[in-house]
């Protein structure tokens, strides 16, 4: 794999530093709410805090309900 970046490879792939729990991007869940993709940090079983909205539509970033820090509710579902 090739990287073309001004940041040296050893800096990009340096993983030894201590990590604060909950700040890792892998701890975030990617969900789609009303057609808008967002990264959510799960705070409760059925709720999460919006961390980042991912969209190409500038209007989505102005939606008051989806500002980072707002809480979105989801329904845990059983499938049997």
């Amino acid at each position, binding site marked *: 794999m090739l990287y073309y970046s*001004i940041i040296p490879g050893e800096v990009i792939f340096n993983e030894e530093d201590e990590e604060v729990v909950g700040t890792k991007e892998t701890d975030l869940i990617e969900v789609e709410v009303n057609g808008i993709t967002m990264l959510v940090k799960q705070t409760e079983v059925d709720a999460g805090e919006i961390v980042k909205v991912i969209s190409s539509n500038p209007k989505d970033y102005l939606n008051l309900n989806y500002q980072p820090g707002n809480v979105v509710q989801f329904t845990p579902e059983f499938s049997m």
Partner: protein
Amino acid sequence: MVRDNDYRQRINPTRISKPARPKKKSRSKKKRKKKGNALQTLKQLGQTNLPESAESDIHCINIVGQIEGHRSLPPKNKTTKYEHLIPQLVAIEQNDNIKGVIMILNTVGGDIEAGLAISEMLSSLSKPTVSLVLGGGHSIGVPIAAATDKSFIAETATMTIHPIRLTGMVIGVPQTYDYLDKMQDRVINFVSSHSNINEDNFRKLMFQTGELVRDVGTVLIGQEAVKEGVIDEVGGLSEAMSELRRMIDNNEGNPSSSIESVVDDN
């Protein structure tokens, strides 16, 4: 939560009587939800209302940090993921309500395959595209900026053009150099065919010595990038947007000749 405290200090006390606390359950559901959002927005952004805007026919794609492709980078890296951008570009191509795209670039480079893929997607998009380099558009950011119909760079923004480096296992054989040279050619060919700089000049910039402290290459700042032909114009958001608007109007005015005019620009 240092950030929260900071915001609370700045809030005018007459506008909010008490600091944020758990919502009361007695209120009706609808009302409670509305107030919760306003309060949350106030806490996070320091304001309660954001301007309402009409449906936008221009979409904006923002590339920050590293461009992430085949491998997830360690969490300290801020990344823009390839798998987020590609579906957005496909959706933009398919949606008739979207008339144009503006790319905002502030990237340090990243995965070469992902970067070239985004560049190819952009250059083959049938709708008008404009790129704006803010801060920095380094390494693989250069072909992405060049891929759009018209590129802009902020006066203070920089672009670093340098050779590709190999990470990981490097075998000291002539083939290694040939392989790197081939990979480099992909970038050089793309940039020279999508901007005003020719292959030889771009190669010269790439292998320039004495410009960078620990590396071979060139740093182009604002106007210099335009002078070398990598970027079309120096400008900011308003210049980029009005150019995009002009291209959209042109497109709608005479749809039959629009494709030719885009090809001519390149």
